[in-house]
């Protein structure tokens, strides 16, 4: 089977499993509770419950140090069953008894095996038929919407899918670190490198432990599922706040399929990263908050007090869970969710300060923060220090840190981690370790722009307010051009401001037309957009930079879709308010979808599949997959630089080539290198990749010249950067050639392509080969 096919199957399988656990199972249990809600709202409810449950089950079991496959399955199934039985309308006892009787008959031979199997298949087929009928009915009644949905899905596959099936290795240098932390969870150590938001890791760990999917496979391809859900959530949210049916599709198609944003705004969707995973919980929190304001008003208008939990309370619960999960996954997501919440508070200001709302909101916010922070707080209180990146994040917020992230740390040692961050700062590479050139260029440009800004700050004091505003306008425009936009669009900022103003005006108009909730939403979105504009331009404007622009632009581009859709929707809604005919509104929004597609093709704005750089050759991952399949666990070692160190956890052992070379070049008498596994695999890049740090000889093949150079000094990842990698690989290559001459039958080429070669050495465990040869 080809690796591409395997990767496609892995992507499909993981997408299906994730959907099963976070959507299908909660749906099975709660579908009756939310039967009266819109499908998009049902989707959000299921998704939030599913993720919250999984995340916190893992948290709990990890903190109790009893996390393993059995406990995870038990803690998933038993609470699920209890809730299912409690929610079941019919007589559950009868139902269970009926099936137990069938089982009894089958076990004791009263019912033949064939009959039993037929009965099971018949029941399954009947259920499947029901589901298909329901689905077909849904599609029939929502034909255009279904088509638009398929179009969006295909667009996402086209744009983002290619990278996943073309490049098998990790694309971001953060991933080995996350891999390491998740591996440690398997040993019951959830905070191995200090306290860190572990929601993302809990989810990955759950799928590793329960379904036996290797962590490295999940980290390679789960990003696709994550990206799909980011878009689905965006679509659901926009549909949820819009009146027209298709406006959301128009916006999402532009965001997914138009080549107008800087690649760095979406590049991270090509990886399995916590920040992006956390994005899926921002919009449900906002949606539930909006729905709270709407529902609470209606409830307050009721003459009688509602018994038990009211709908608004449920929405607030949903808000708390979603907001809490943003804290549990990534603080940046919390910040964005917070900004949007402030915008909603402004939009719904006429209700927000009403004690009947505010009291509940405060409780919900405290609960949300507690949910997110408590597990980390407990660990911190019991003496586990904060993980480095949290300190960095806090420094950034306090204006002490630079714009670079620390999460692209070296996976080998904590001390090296610091060095790596310094290296990154020096070389100006992407903070996440991605090796996109555009990113570093834009960062530099941003810094230049900021420099020019600060240089002229003293003069600005003397300028009039209008000139100051004009200066700020120009700074924002330049910043957007550099950070957010793919190419120069002079009209972009004025157009954006116009759209914001339009949304705000329309919001006010809606207040006049007694469409209070919708008006508040429009104003909230307008305010949120302005806040995001300020956030992404904070450095330009000389404001404290709450978030590195490299990260904030991702959210900015994401949420621009909301304002764009809302503006289109507002326009369509006006016609609805005038004509009172819903079909006209929907037709107009459908026209917007068609227009978006036609315009995109006509203006040649359609995005091509894009890829990010890679930190590992495809050959290396192909080999790793084969090695795991070929051999018994813990009978082999891989000598490689360097991502395999974390990838092979639970399967085999890893040896650093730099250690190998240092030992081999040792001047000691009787020097020896023994690797005590039956099989040893040597990974050698014939054309060494640029691991984060390109150099002037980038792309050259290993050579005797490289092998003749001095061995890089040190340990950790820096010895595999730039030219060092070429030297290390050259030395390893010529060592392997020599060793193969001495042991032609024992050391063989396991895999080879144009850029990578893997040698396999088979040893006698009772008489290992001395790998130290001159």
């Amino acid at each position, binding site marked *: 089977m080809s690796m591409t096919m395997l990767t496609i199957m892995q992507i499909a399988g993981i997408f299906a499993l994730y959907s099963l656990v976070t959507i299908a199972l909660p749906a099975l249990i709660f579908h009756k509770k939310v039967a009266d809600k819109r499908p998009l709202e049902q989707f959000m409810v299921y998704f939030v419950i599913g993720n919250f449950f999984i995340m916190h089950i893992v948290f709990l079991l990890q903190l109790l140090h009893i996390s393993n496959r059995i406990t995870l399955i038990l803690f998933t199934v038993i609470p699920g069953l209890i809730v299912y039985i409690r929610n079941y309308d019919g007589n559950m006892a009868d139902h269970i008894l009926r099936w137990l009787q069938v089982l009894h008959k089958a076990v004791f031979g009263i019912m033949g095996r064939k009959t039993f199997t037929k009965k099971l298949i018949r029941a399954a087929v009947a259920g499947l038929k029901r589901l298909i009928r329901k689905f077909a009915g849904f599609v029939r009644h929502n034909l255009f919407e279904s088509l638009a949905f398929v179009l969006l899905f295909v667009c996402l596959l086209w744009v983002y899918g290619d990278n996943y099936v073309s490049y098998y290795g990790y694309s971001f240098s953060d991933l080995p670190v996350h891999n390491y932390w998740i591996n440690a969870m398997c040993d019951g150590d959830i905070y191995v490198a200090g306290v860190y938001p572990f929601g993302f890791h809990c989810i990955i760990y759950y799928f590793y432990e329960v379904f036996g999917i290797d962590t490295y496979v999940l980290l390679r391809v789960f990003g696709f599922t994550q990206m799909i859900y980011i878009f689905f959530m965006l679509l659901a949210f926009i549909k949820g706040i819009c009146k027209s049916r298709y406006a959301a599709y128009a916006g999402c198609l532009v965001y997914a399929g138009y080549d107008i944003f800087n690649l760095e705004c979406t590049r991270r969707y090509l990886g399995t990263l916590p920040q992006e995973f956390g994005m899926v919980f921002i919009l449900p929190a906002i949606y539930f908050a909006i729905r709270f304001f709407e529902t609470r008003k209606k409830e307050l208008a009721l003459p009688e007090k509602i018994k038990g939990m009211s709908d608004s309370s449920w929405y607030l619960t949903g808000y708390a869970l979603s907001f809490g999960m943003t804290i549990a996954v990534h603080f940046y997501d919390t910040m964005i969710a917070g900004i949007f919440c402030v915008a909603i508070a402004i939009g719904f200001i006429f209700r927000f300060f009403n004690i009947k709302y505010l009291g509940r909101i405060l409780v919900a916010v405290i609960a949300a923060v507690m949910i997110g922070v408590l597990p980390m707080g407990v660990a911190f209180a019991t003496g586990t220090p904060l993980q480095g990146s949290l300190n960095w994040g806090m420094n950034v917020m306090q204006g002490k840190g630079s714009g670079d992230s620390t999460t692209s740390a070296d996976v080998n040692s904590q001390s090296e981690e610091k060095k790596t961050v310094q290296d990154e700062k020096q070389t100006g590479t992407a903070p996440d370790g991605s090796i996109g050139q555009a990113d570093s260029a834009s960062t530099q440009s941003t810094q230049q722009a900021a420099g020019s800004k600060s240089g002229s700050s003293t003069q600005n004091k003397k300028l009039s307010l209008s000139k100051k505003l004009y200066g700020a306008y120009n700074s924002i425009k330049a910043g957007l051009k550099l950070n957010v936009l793919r190419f120069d669009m002079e009209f972009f900022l004025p157009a954006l401001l116009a759209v914001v103003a339009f949304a705000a005006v329309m919001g006010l108009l809606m207040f006049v037309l007694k469409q209070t909730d919708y008006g508040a939403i429009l104003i909230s979105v307008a305010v949120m957009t302005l806040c995001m504009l300020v956030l992404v331009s904070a450095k330009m404007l000389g404001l404290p930079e709450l978030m590195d622009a490299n990260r904030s632009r991702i959210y900015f581009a994401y949420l621009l879709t909301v304002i764009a859709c809302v503006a289109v929707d507002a326009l369509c809604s006006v016609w609805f308010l005038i004509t009172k005919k819903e079909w006209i509104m929907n037709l107009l929004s459908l026209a917007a979808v068609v227009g978006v597609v036609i315009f995109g093709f006509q203006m040649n704005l359609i995005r091509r599949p894009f890829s990010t750089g890679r930190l590992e050759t495809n050959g290396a991952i192909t080999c790793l997959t084969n090695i795991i399949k070929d051999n018994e666990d813990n009978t082999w070692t891989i000598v490689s630089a360097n991502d395999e160190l974390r990838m092979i956890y639970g399967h085999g052992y890893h040896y650093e080539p730099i250690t190998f070379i240092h030992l081999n070049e040792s001047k000691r008498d009787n020097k020896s290198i023994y690797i005590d596994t039956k099989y040893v695999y040597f990974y050698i890049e014939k054309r060494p990749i640029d691991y984060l740090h390109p150099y002037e000889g980038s792309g050259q093949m290993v050579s005797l010249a490289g092998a003749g150079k001095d061995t890089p000094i040190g340990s950790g990842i820096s010895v595999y950067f730039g030219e060092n990698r070429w030297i290390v690989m050259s030395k390893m290559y010529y060592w392997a050639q020599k060793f193969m001459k001495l042991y032609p*039958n*024992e050391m063989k080429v396991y895999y080879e392509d144009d850029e990578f070669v893997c040698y396999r050495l088979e040893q006698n465990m009772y008489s290992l080969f001395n790998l130290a040869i001159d």
Partner: protein
Amino acid sequence: MVSRRNFFVITLIMLLVLFLFQFSEFIKDFYNDYDTNVYASSDRSLTQTSVVRPVSESDKIAASEDGYAVFIGNAADTASPAKRTVQQWCTYSKMNMLSVGSPEEYTPDTKHMPEVVFVDSNQIDFSRSASALSGIANSGVTMIFCSLPEPSVIEASEELRNILGISSVKQNKAQLKGIKLFGGFLVGGEKWYIANNEKEEKYQDMQLEVPWYILKSGTKVYMAGVLDEGRYGEVNNELQPCIIWRYRTDKTCVFAINGDYGQDNTGLGIYTAMMYEAKDYDIYPVVNSQNIIAINYPSFSSENDEQMKKRYSRSSTETLRDIIWPNLSGLINHFNAKMTYMVTPQNNYQDESYPKQEEIEYYFKLFRENGDEAGWAAYNLQDATLRQKIVADYDTFYRTVPNYKFMSMYVNENSREKTMSLLKTALLKDVRTVVFDYEKDTQMFSYLSNQVMELRTTNDGLDYTFMKDFKNRSLQTALGYSSITLDMTDVLFPEEDSPEWGRKYEDFATNLAEYLDCYSAFDKNTVSETDSRVRHFLAADYTEKREDNSIKVHIENYKENVYFILRTHGESIADITGGSWKKIEDDAYLILAGDENLSITLKPDNTLYYYR
């Protein structure tokens, strides 16, 4: 009351049942032509003259394109044990052999390099010859040191150490606890010759006092000693004294044997395995035959009854028939083997007890049913001469199984002349195979006369030791041959302290498993079948060539089935034309050439599950 009708039906059914049982027995008995030997072959074409013998003249070797071996250490007058072994190995490997006295006398012919150079260290003065040996080693030829010089000689010569891959001499004599034979060298896999308990102590007869050398990197160890921790402390596996190893550099490939294992027939398999290790694959002819021979069993006269009754509460014939036969036949069936019974009609020719006809018929029928063969055992316990015994036995067999041709016989004395004279008698005129006991420096197979083959047994089934196990593995590797004997004399005429049959049977069954279990792929034959296999083995010559993944073998003098062992390094057989194959173990295959041209296609063992 039973009605007449029912009575009739019951009687009819009983008669039918009786008929069915008796009929099958009757038919079996009727068609059992037990008085003929099914293994009596009429093919007389392969004789002593058919044997392919290695050329030893230097000019003929130079003129020939065939592969050849060089033996350095040729003593002036008599052949050293190492040379005799190498000669034998060359005969079986179909390789010519050039002998020279010292390294200085030999200069590698770069146009026609030898396959291997054997060095008999016992015959070489290393103080003079180390440089010359170094020159030979650097020519790129594979070298095998049949034994090593004294540690003091090695310590004194850096050149010699460099050839052998010895870094230093740790001790001149180290006392070993046992020896580990690693897998992948000899066919049959890994074996540890370490006595772990008192019972195993009696098996330990390996050479446990050896020089202790520390080896350089670039070496691969095939057999290593295990030091006694109590005496030497904890020593890493890699630093334990090595017994057999290979040292390779850019130019050389040198094998060394630290001990006497290469000095006798045990060396045959070691050399074969070394050749396999020196190459990326090896294909060589083998006999592919495993014999089990019962000597002096059965006996057809009731002798030594008193002692038998005392031990087994049965007469001699009853003991042989009711106790021993079921045990033996069951065991042989378990191994899917065939037994050759070297019968002796009677052991005492002076008493009044004569062989019973019904006993002879009974056993010969069983032999026929089981596919076994009867041969003749040429020794008796009493003081009758062989001539008397032959006359008496001839008379016995002539009366009972006149048509049975004895094709094989067992002789417990190493007198070829005496044996030859026996073969002229009427009883033994059809004999084509004479089985002798194993002797460590005598050829395993040779011709007694133009027609009669001499086969050597390999092991006594009642005597297992580590050294014998090692020898068995070596011979199986080189020849795919074993011949295990069970001498029943001590059962029939036991000494006072001799164990009873039950104990002996237990030992025999255990030892048989030790000797045969790893070699289930090899055919189990009677002596006559083995004789035929050996004749074909000795007569066939072959050439082989590899092109990409295909090995082409051409067999000269091909008559019928010739067997080969193919050993690879991480490759398996994808397809074969002109023959068939069986897997012996990983990387070792038994190949039957059904035609004079054989083509074997190989494929790598480790094909990738996932590819780019």
